């Protein structure tokens, strides 16, 4: 499974990358905001997207919307990384078609739980 990690803060990308690697997902790539992520996603090589919410350029929520608007990416699982579980934000993201969210800071175990949950749901639905 190839995962795209989107965050403007390279330290954060590295943290997430390491956590994913700990979980056995070593096939990852990075992008620093929605604008750079989208062309990468459009290559169709990614099976999962982990994106930060708050970024300059194109925000995570806008990336999510752009992903859902693209017929080829509409079913791509998206995990949103946020700093707070702000209801307003999460509801907005859910409406935009997010599959799950995770609040910073998180551990590999939490991340795994979130990813598993997303796939459970996809399989069930």
């Amino acid at each position, binding site marked *: 499974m190839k995962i795209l990690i989107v965050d*403007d*803060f*390279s*330290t*954060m990308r*590295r*943290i997430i990358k*390491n956590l994913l690697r700990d979980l056995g997902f070593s096939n990852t790539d990075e*992008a*620093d905001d929605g*604008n*750079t992520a*989208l*062309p*990468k996603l*459009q290559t169709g090589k990614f099976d999962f997207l982990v994106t930060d919410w*708050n*970024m*300059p350029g*194109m925000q995570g*929520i*806008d990336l*999510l*919307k*752009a*992903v*859902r*608007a*693209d*017929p080829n990416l*509409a079913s791509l699982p998206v995990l949103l990384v946020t*700093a*707070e*579980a*702000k*209801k*307003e*934000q*999460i*509801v*907005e993201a*859910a*409406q*935009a*078609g*997010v*599959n*799950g*969210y995770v*609040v*910073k*800071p998180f551990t590999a175990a939490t991340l795994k739980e979130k990813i598993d*949950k997303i796939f459970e*749901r996809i399989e*069930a*639905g």
Partner: protein
Amino acid sequence: MAIDLNDEILQDFLVEAGEILELLGEQLVELEQAPDDLELLNAVFRGFHTVKGGGGFLGLDTLVAVCHRAEDVFNLLRQGERQITPQLMDVILRVTDVVNDMMDSIRSGIDPDAADPALLEALEAILKGEEDAGTVGPAPVVEETPEVVVESAVASTPSDEITDDEFEALLDDLHGQTNSPDPVEAAAAPADSDEITEDEFEALLDQLHDAAPKQEVAVEEVKAGEVAATSTRSSDEISEDEFEALLDDLDAKKKAAAPTVKTEPAPKPASAPAPKKEAMPAAEPKKTETKPAAKIAKEAPPAETTVRVDTKRLDDIMNLVGELVLVRNRMATLKSTMTADEEVAKAIANLDLVTADLQSSVMKTRMQPIKKVFGRFPRVVRDLARSLKKEINLELIGEETDLDKNLVEALADPLVHLVRNAVDHGIELPDEREQAGKVRAGTVVLSATQEGDHILLTIDDDGKGMDANILRASAVEKGMMDEDAAARLDDKACYNLIFSPGFSTKAEISDVSGRGVGMDVVKTRISQLNGAVEVDSTLGKGSRITIKLPLTLAIMPTLMVVLAGQVFALPLANVNEIFDMESAKLSTVDGKEVVIIREKAVPLVRLSNWLVKNSGQAPAVESNGFVVVTTIAGQHIGCVVDQLVGQEEVVIKPLGAMLHGTKGVSGATITGNGGIALILDMPGLMETYASRI
């Protein structure tokens, strides 16, 4: 938490967060000037947010705590619930100081102490002032949502964060929901809090996925969405229509659901009155909107093209290039002496070219925009102006001028001192300025430009300027020179007296610029960088300090001269002009030799007397000698040398331990013919032998 400095992620964080903080310092001062700049506000918010997020992963709790509060403050600011005031900025700027201190202590491996409670309280106070207003909105929302299902889970979480259970429930509701449409609403019930629980989210997802077919459900959901948003904005109604449209779309299995939502974040109350009609047209704007999105994607910049490199490596490369330059010089000399055949000559000429290119390329890798230093000045000037009750505009020109990294760092302190001086002593108080017929706000202009192989920095102020006579009197009073000597100094030389050690007029001491380095230290520091500093002033109009620096420290263009058979390298930056001794008009003033240049007497020194042992008291080869006119701290001095070899780029090698610190010599180098030449430090030389001029 113990800090593991070997942790690469921590190192990354320190570098990257450090950059963000540096930027924050600038942005904050900018923000104070332009409090309505929403983009800037967002950038500042994001800065604190990012540092907090990274710090959280690294367990830097104290850092997270203070950044979190600052972030909250900016969240209120960007929502327009709080106005930017100088008091608020004082608090926030102190936050950046505290965070920088914390970063420093992390860098040295110490877990940072918690921020000063007073500062946290100040932040809390700012936040609280707003919370009252903020809580008004969500209250009625709670009444609207009396529903069940997730309620129990909700009840156990009085906080505004969504729990995992809640999220699950939310997803379930959104997904496989056959029940009532209420769960989402229920999930949203604890709307007095604005954070979502896991259950709520799960329920929400479920509902979004499967509830769509039922129109009624959809309507209910819309409410839920609205409620969940807990926004105090009056524009909530509009999302109802849009959401309805979205659900219709979901129902119709259209793929383009996303863009519909996209319109949601920016609802305009004006379009609210037509809820039913919107469901249909909503599909159309959707299509037009996907296009720009796709377009953006195509124009997106390529992935990162930069690499972080340890400066140590660059230093090593620079050093090697330096050695190569020496070899090149040696080859060039050989070529001219050994009458090499054409092929060899060509190869050497080629080597010459390539080396020059390599040298400039490597130099460029070490270049940094001077913005790195300039960036801190808005803050410095702002704080100073506030504490001195002055009004000052700072203009920065040529921030993008590139300069060797070491120079950028070495320049920071001297420049801060000079700018402080300009603000403290240069610019008058607003009332004084008005009386003098000037605008109340003073202006300090800091500019950088590249001129050939050196950088010119200037600090201009439109303040009161300096009085040459007061400076003369002060010099006499301090016993630095007698009255006659002082009277002979032209005005410009007087201004430059401020760079002399131990010179400071009474008016010049204050708690602002009185501390830290003095002007003489500034001058010494700049001389160490092979640079020169001078000041000019017009009484009542302001002063200008000019700093001239080489582009790089490692390789220096010099003029090779011969003194009594020995080769010396004279930094070209100091050289003004050269003329033949024969055409020079010599004279004697006050018992000292001078040379008349364009009707001005310039002191003449015989360098060989200073630098070469037993070179003979009498000028032996006077007729064949040359005068090299150098500028040192704004003063022209004619140096007599026996022969001129030519211009050569030399690599500076430090003197050995025994000779280290020899006055007047900054280092040594290997010349093109394989010999060794000492590199003269002209300001140091003059200082040491100045009494003889």
